[in-house]
């Protein structure tokens, strides 16, 4: 694995973002809209409930921000790949001495950068606009952030594999995949509030213990370490499976001779 190659690929995305400011708008604009909607909902609920619950309900904003960590990481991988497809650059990359792991690492890093931009903006707005300080999560933020980012990468690889398999017609999966799982990973509500039959499914995803943990930390200042271990363990499994799936699909496209068709259509 070569840092030089990864940084060269990252440089390409940085050039892209500076050349096309519209991409930055998307990074900042949508999260803001989301945040304002949920922020206003929170204010509304706060005004119509007792003080204790009113303070706790701020978890909506925490959930919004953490959800965006996952979503941006996934987008970093999936959209970076699509950028190469849209610009017919994929072949140039595949005939260059770039290993799959280097290519993926570059997209991971782009995911990380996207998260930074979005989170800084959302963190500031939620603090100034709704007096929600994301740093009330203290050091817990670090494992939350890492776990959600890694899960986002896995989802990104899965989305990309699906797009490779089904062609550009499946492009919208790049945006849709995270939302397929949003209902079951308990972003805005507790697992115990979900229908009983669906609760076991919730614990199959590493995001669930993180969102549960976030609410716990906001309420009690600490959380069950077992939740963190569960998230980390599940992440290892997801990352392995997603990486394997991506490589498998890539080889299959090579075998079927579809890689070049895909890259030049």
């Amino acid at each position, binding site marked *: 694995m070569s840092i*030089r*190659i990864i*940084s*060269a*690929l990252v*440089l*390409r995305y940085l*050039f*892209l973002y500076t*050349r*096309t400011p519209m991409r930055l708008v998307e990074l900042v604009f949508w999260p803001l809209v989301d945040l304002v909607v949920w922020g206003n909902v929170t204010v509304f609920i706060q005004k119509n409930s007792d003080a204790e619950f009113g303070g706790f309900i701020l978890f909506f904003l925490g959930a919004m921000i953490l959800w965006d960590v996952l979503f941006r990481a996934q987008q970093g991988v999936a959209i970076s790949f699509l*950028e*190469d497809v849209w*610009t*017919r*650059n994929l*072949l*140039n990359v*595949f*005939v*260059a*001495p*770039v*290993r799959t792991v280097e290519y993926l690492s570059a997209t991971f890093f782009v995911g990380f950068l996207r998260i930074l931009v979005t989170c800084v903006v959302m963190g500031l707005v939620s603090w100034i606009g709704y007096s929600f300080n994301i740093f009330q999560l203290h050091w817990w933020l670090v494992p939350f952030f890492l776990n959600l980012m890694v899960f986002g990468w896995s989802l990104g690889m899965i989305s990309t594999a699906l797009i490779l398999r089904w062609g550009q017609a499946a492009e919208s999966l790049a945006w849709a995949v995270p939302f397929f799982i949003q209902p079951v990973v308990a972003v805005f509500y507790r697992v115990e509030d979900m229908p009983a039959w669906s609760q076991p499914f919730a614990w199959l995803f590493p995001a669930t213990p993180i969102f549960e943990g976030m609410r716990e930390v906001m309420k009690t200042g600490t959380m069950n370490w077992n939740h963190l271990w569960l998230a980390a363990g599940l992440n290892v499994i997801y990352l392995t499976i997603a990486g394997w799936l991506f490589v498998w699909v890539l*080889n299959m496209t*090579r*075998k079927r*001779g579809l*890689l*070049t068709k895909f*890259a*030049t259509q």
Partner: protein
Amino acid sequence: MSDAPDTREVILEARELTREFDGVKALDRFSFTLHRGEVLGLLGANGAGKTTAMNCLLGLTLPTSGDLFAFGLPLQANRIKILRRSNFSSAYTALPGNLLVWQNLLVFARIYGVPNPKKKIAELLELLEIPHLNKRVTGQLSAGESTRVNLCKAFLNDPELLMLDEPTASLDPDIADKVRKVVRKVQRERNIGILYTSHNMRDIEEVCDRVIFLHKGKIVCEGTPADIVAQSSSDNLEDVFIKIARDGEILDEPKKDPAS
């Protein structure tokens, strides 16, 4: 040239390369060698299998059967090592359109680990007579301009092996002529082995030392362009091309096996 065996190092070799798509053979036991410093033209009608051959040789498409070697190494197991010493350009790929020309070239220079990339890029732009395009948006270039930028990318890593798939497609005769001359010049200076496809016979006659005619994935004949014209009952390469494309044979009644 055709009588004396070529003693230069073989840098690319296909042995019985076969590639099927849904049971149809796009390449049928295709074997050839390319030597260091040689330009080998791959000719044939639309669908003859030229691009498929190149894609297999680049590792983009896996062969159904057969063996591929570059620089004496089996291709699949040494893909990255081989790609470091090779490059590719075609009329069908593009560099990201929203970046500036120098940005694109810099990214690829870094990927290929070019020492002193800025200097190298300036040299190549000079060589292809396009220094003025340096700060242009890649996507706004004309076909001829972007072909030359693509060629810059292909020369970045001083490849020993270069694959060019229809590099002159969509170029006007003047620019096509310039591109041919530059390719030939760089190729001679650096002793590059080039696999070259084109539908332009002028291209082939000027650039290629040797050509292989493919028809439905099989070799119909090979030799220097002059040899091939001499072997056939035609006056020029273009007529040979048309003959092979229509009949799959070089002669009306085959007198000898031209491929031997």
